């Protein structure tokens, strides 16, 4: 959003990135930013529903949840947390670089962010395949042998729904970042115009923030 190039009303003093129904860049930037934040709120509530469901199911089957979470690999989880935190850092650096007009750095940091996002997904891939192998699957696909506490499949239902939805968001973020990278390579972003970098950045931080909560809820509930 907020990136349409207006061809109708591009006077000499009008930025090529200013859409025709806005008067100034400030106004366009403010609008886009409000829009993005509102969207983030909807994301929070979307995930929030899952958190509420998780909370209530956890409260009614605490033993099952506790027993089940031992199947998760804490090291992997912690590693992934750090990967995402660093990627948030590189993302914010990309925004900063754009705002001080360092176009090369923007590209560098975007590339780093994308790589870190990729790393996150690779780690997740290993975790998932391990779970698949052990039959630790959601709902009726759960086939793990030898449980002593019943009902552990409930935990894995939530594990997969929550990390799965999060993973989809990481993927979507990577797509958005790649798009930014293309534009950054073209040299679009500089001190005068970096709204899109900022907005994707916000989204990316939110994805990070959700993981910050997922990590303890999934991996650390003993």
């Amino acid at each position, binding site marked *: *959003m907020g990136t349409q190039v207006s061809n109708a009303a591009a006077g000499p003093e009008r930025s090529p990135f200013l859409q025709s129904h806005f008067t100034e860049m400030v106004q366009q930037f403010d609008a886009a930013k409000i829009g993005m934040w*509102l969207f983030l709120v909807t994301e929070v509530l979307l995930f929030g529903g899952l958190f509420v469901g998780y909370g209530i199911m956890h409260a009614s089957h605490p033993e099952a949840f506790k027993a089940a979470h031992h199947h998760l690999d804490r090291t992997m989880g912690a590693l992934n947390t750090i990967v995402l935190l660093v990627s948030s850092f590189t993302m914010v650096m990309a925004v900063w670089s754009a705002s001080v007009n360092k176009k090369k750095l923007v590209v560098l940091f975007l590339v780093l962010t994308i790589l870190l996002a990729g790393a996150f997904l690779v780690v997740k891939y290993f975790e998932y395949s391990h779970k698949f192998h052990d039959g630790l699957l959601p709902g009726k696909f759960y086939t793990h042998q030898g449980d002593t506490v019943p009902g552990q499949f409930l935990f894995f*239902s939530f594990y997969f729904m929550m990390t799965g939805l999060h993973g989809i968001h990481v993927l979507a973020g990577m797509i958005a970042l790649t798009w930014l990278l293309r534009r950054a390579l073209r040299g679009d972003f500089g001190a005068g115009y970096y709204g899109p970098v900022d907005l994707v950045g916000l989204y990316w931080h939110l994805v990070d923030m959700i993981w910050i909560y997922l990590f303890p809820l999934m991996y650390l509930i003993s």
Partner: protein
Amino acid sequence: MENVSSATLHGSGHAAHHGDYLEDPKGLRSWLTTVDHKRIGIMYMWSVIFFMVVGGLLALLLRLELLTPKQTLITAEMYNRVFTLHGAVMVFLVIIPGIPAALGNFALPLLLGAKDVAFPRLNLFSYYLYVTGALMALCTLLLGGVDTGWTFYTPYSTTTGGGVTLMVLAAFVLGFSSIFTGVNFIATVHTLRAPGMGWFEMPLFCWSMYATALIQILATPVLGITLLLLVMERVMGVGIFDPQLGGDPVLFQHFFWFYSHPAVYIMILPAMAVISEVIPTFSKKTIFGYKAIAFSSIAIALLGFLVWAHHMFTAGMSLFAGAIFSFLTFFIAIPSAIKVFNWIATMWRGSISLRAPMIYAISFLLMFTIGGLTGLFLASLATDVHLHDTYFVVAHFHYVMAGSNLVALLAGIHYWWPKMFGRMYNDKLASVGAALVFLGFNATFLPQFVMGSRGMPRRYYNYLPEFQGLHIASTIGSWILASGLFLGLAVLIASLMKPKEQLARNPWGGRTLEWETASPPTTHNFDEPIALRHGPYDYRPVEEIEASEGVTR
């Protein structure tokens, strides 16, 4: 915020002349790819009218089936599918997008003096989401229909066959369409008000739309996740709503109503928005209690989040929760009452012309009074235990959804029609239509209150013979109602057949900004930079306004 106005509205160097937005540019393609809020609004409007007819025909089928106990026309399974589709179409495809996405898209930027909404392309995207969702909903018919009721209660919905998954995903997509409209409106109201237009100089329509958008953003995502959970439950048996797997079926109801109760205010607030415009215009008098109306919109939006479990008083909720939710529910009555009385006070000592939009608006006032007050029966614990899931509830929500919202939608369509198309319809016939709608509506749904309180449960295909008299009355009423609606639609379409006239900018003599541009407006809405000369509802003569200072500019 306020210093946005430092520049003139049009910026610099804009192309001098634009044609009428309906014609410039021409062609189907230009419509399908348009980012013009007015065109998107019009496309929404026709889609909504189309689905209104679909939903309405389904309703007529329901009423016909209920003419006699046992089978009249269709089988029980069919009946269940029909009322589900009727409810889902009316709620998700007609009422929720109705006023905000159709009229709001068309009118909100005009009322604010803006050139467009903040994110025009998102707006178009939201329309296509709507179309996608609508098609998905209709495709469920190919999968054998959906028979869960529009509330999708578990565990019935996780175990029945048919196209439930698809229908639920359709509702999910439609939810996002609605969210994007909301995001757009909030950003628009914040950043695109005409230079010099403060918050309290906005027309009340915008306040109400703003309040609606708040709910759309805060509640709809929860619906999204609820529906996803339902799909997961069906596909993977995740267990959260299934008692056999340790889940809690009643939890689904909490999830569902956390959205769907606020959603009823997504439906009524826009209706109130329209009424707040129509009544002053046809009373030629300043709106009474501007701030009270504005703040009560916000109050309704926020309070609406605190009451959802009033749909669950008999659902095995705890006594404590029942008491809290009932108590909070009653608070909604207060801002609603404030609005109703302010509108009546606006008419008081006005100069009232009973044109079609005003007749619809008056119908709204009367039917909302009934619909809202019957909400009190349901909000009150002891009586709800008796009335829950009977036709009393059906009558209540038709009074507020069809009797108030739909009627307000019609009021709005009739009100802005000349602005939209530059043509005036036959006001006499339209008024006859409005009167028929009022009569037919009451004939359809008043008997339902009585059968409900006598114990006729809803979603009943077959019923005891003692209820037949009332059912017959209701069915006959639905025919009167339908004839009024079809007459209204015919009158509107007939006006489009007429050659285009050079319609006055301001056929109703309204004071808000949309009347200051051409009818139909040009592509960029306003040709001259906007100068606010008076408040949105200031009906004093120009000299007097100029002489006074303060309240208005």
